């Protein structure tokens, strides 16, 4: 039997992996992919909670509606984000995180 706990553990692992990737990777594209993974982890948790939260014997769908919004927002973020990353590549010929360290102190 797969319980809520299983979903949450997977979601948590996914979130942690994403976070670790964001922190550890130097390529901005990959960092961005890790960020998407974190959003997916959140979505998984939402769906899981929603599935096991029964209202009148049926799963509660408000949380699932948020998942759709999240996916949409993620898409928008990717659109804008990739544009910015492309602009960065154009000007620096690099997508390494270390190429943006001018602002500091």
């Amino acid at each position, binding site marked *: 039997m797969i319980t809520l706990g299983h979903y949450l553990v997977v979601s948590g692992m996914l979130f942690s992996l994403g976070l670790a990737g*964001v*922190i*550890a990777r*130097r390529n901005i594209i990959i960092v961005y992919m890790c960020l998407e993974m974190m959003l997916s982890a959140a979505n998984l948790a939402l769906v899981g909670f929603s599935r096991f939260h029964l209202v009148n014997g049926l799963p509660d769908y408000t949380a699932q509606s948020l998942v759709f919004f999240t996916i949409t927002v993620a898409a928008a973020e990717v659109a804008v984000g990739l544009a910015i990353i492309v602009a960065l590549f154009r000007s620096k010929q690099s997508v390494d*995180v*270390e190429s943006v*360290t*001018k602002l*500091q*102190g």
Partner: protein
Amino acid sequence: MHASIILLLPFFSALVILLGHRQLKGAAVLISVGSSIISFIACLALLAAADDKENTKLLLPFLDIGYLHANIDVLIDKQSRGMMFIVSFIGMLVHIFSLGYMKDDDAKPRFFGSLSLFMFSMTGIVLAGNLIMMFIFWELVGLSSYLLIGHWYQKASAAEACKKAFLTNRIGDFGFMIGILLLFGANGGSVNIEDLTTAFGPGGTLGIHAPGHSAGFTTAAALCIFLGAVGKSAQFPLHVWLPDAMEGPTPVSALIHAATMVAAGVYMLVRVRFLIEASPLAAEIIAGIGAVTALMAALMATQQNDIKRILAYSTLSQLGYMVMAVGAVAMSVQHGHELHGPNPGHPAMFHLYTHAFFKAMLFLGSGAIIYACHHEQDIWKMGGLRKHMPVTFYTFLIGTLALMGLPWITSGFYSKEAILGAAYDSGCSILFHSASLTALLTSFYMMRLVIVAFFGKSRTDSARHAKEVEVIMLLPLVILAVFSVFSAWKTFADTLQAYKPAHEEPHATVLFASIAAFLIGTGGAIYLYRGKDKDPINIKLFANKFYFDEIYAVIVRVCQDRLAWIVTALERVLVDGLVARLPTAIVARLGAATRMLQGGHLQGYTFLLGGGVIAVIYLVVFVLPRLGH
């Protein structure tokens, strides 16, 4: 009415002259001399209106809060009337003398303005009905003394002398103020002299037999007040300023540093003698200090060469005499010898009174000599002045004899004998012996002065060309000479309300000592100094005034200037360092450190952000619930 004229006239005179002397020019002198004459007439009226009742009158408000009434109120009694006469009389004469003496001085108006200021302040002390008022004027005489000693401030020595005088007096005032505060507190807020007399008197709340009496407190209060007198009357160990004060113009030395201001300490001690009488220890200390001062100053006087300095040390010595008398009288009262009569005179006040005349006379005389010798003050550079300045000589001689105490004729004999009597009655033989020795030394050094300065042949040109001074300067000399002789006579003294002890026949021992001292001292001086051109004796210790100035210079350098240096360094390093620099340095370091967090590396930021999330989760989920918030 009289009191307000006497007090306020010189005040306005001083104010007008000091603030507007450049506009007033010559009129300043007239205002000052005029005001001194009017004051004197008012004083005579005060004497004429004499009754023996004491009364305190409010003259002007000053500080009046709740039960504190520190106002300008005057206490008119026999003591203040007599003293007032001396002050206004000698003051007037000095004003007149100064007309001649200061004729050529550029800053004459400033001089007369300061003189008026002095008359105002001294009057205030004499009339003061409470100790705070006395303190106020006490300080003001200090100011006028400062201004007058520093009259020729261009001279470095005068500038230093006036500073020294003011500062030394400040130390005395430090004690005086503490004494006033103690009395104020203990007597429930009143420092009125009459109230205090009642409180310390029989049946009073603070008297020696009262339940609230505390010997320690009484002694402390008495000694603190006495410290004020030590400063003002230049007693050991604060005597060092008075000889230096001779840097001032000579009339000033006569008035302030011989006759009146320096005697204010004695006047004040007699005013509060109820306090001294309530404390045996204080009485002994006061008598001792007086005796030491008298003897020490007399010893120093024997080796001085500056005519004014000899007189200054003589003044010190005589003031020591008076202070000793205050202590001695208190001691004898404690032993049960009450002073006699309904309004008993006090030997110290009596000596103050006679001394004022002859010492003022001596100073004015020396002023005349200095004036005639073109500001030459060394007696070894004079000589033979007897022939050049006969009037001055004779008046000076009369003054000297009075100071030496020529038996039965001069006033000085009677007053000195009264003091010797008091010392004898005090039950302390050391006092009596040292007083007698002082009397002997007095005769010695005064005779030395007269012989060296007036007899023999003139030793320098300035002495050879000395001429008798003008009449306006001689007149005060003559008048004072008359008083030097007669002022102790009964009719005279009574009319002037001198505080003369109603003395019985003097004790034989006292009489003998007094006459012996006179004879031995005079004889010794004549023997040693007749016909000498330079000093046959040479005692460095006395000539250098027991090295007090040097010792004090070291004390000031070490205890004050060096300490100030150390404290300043510590203040900069420790206080400023700990309170200001250290915290700023810490904050600055923190600021720099927190800036390091902001390294500009995206990975660093994500790391911190992720770490922050984990830290917050850890804090909220695991730490805070345990803390029981």
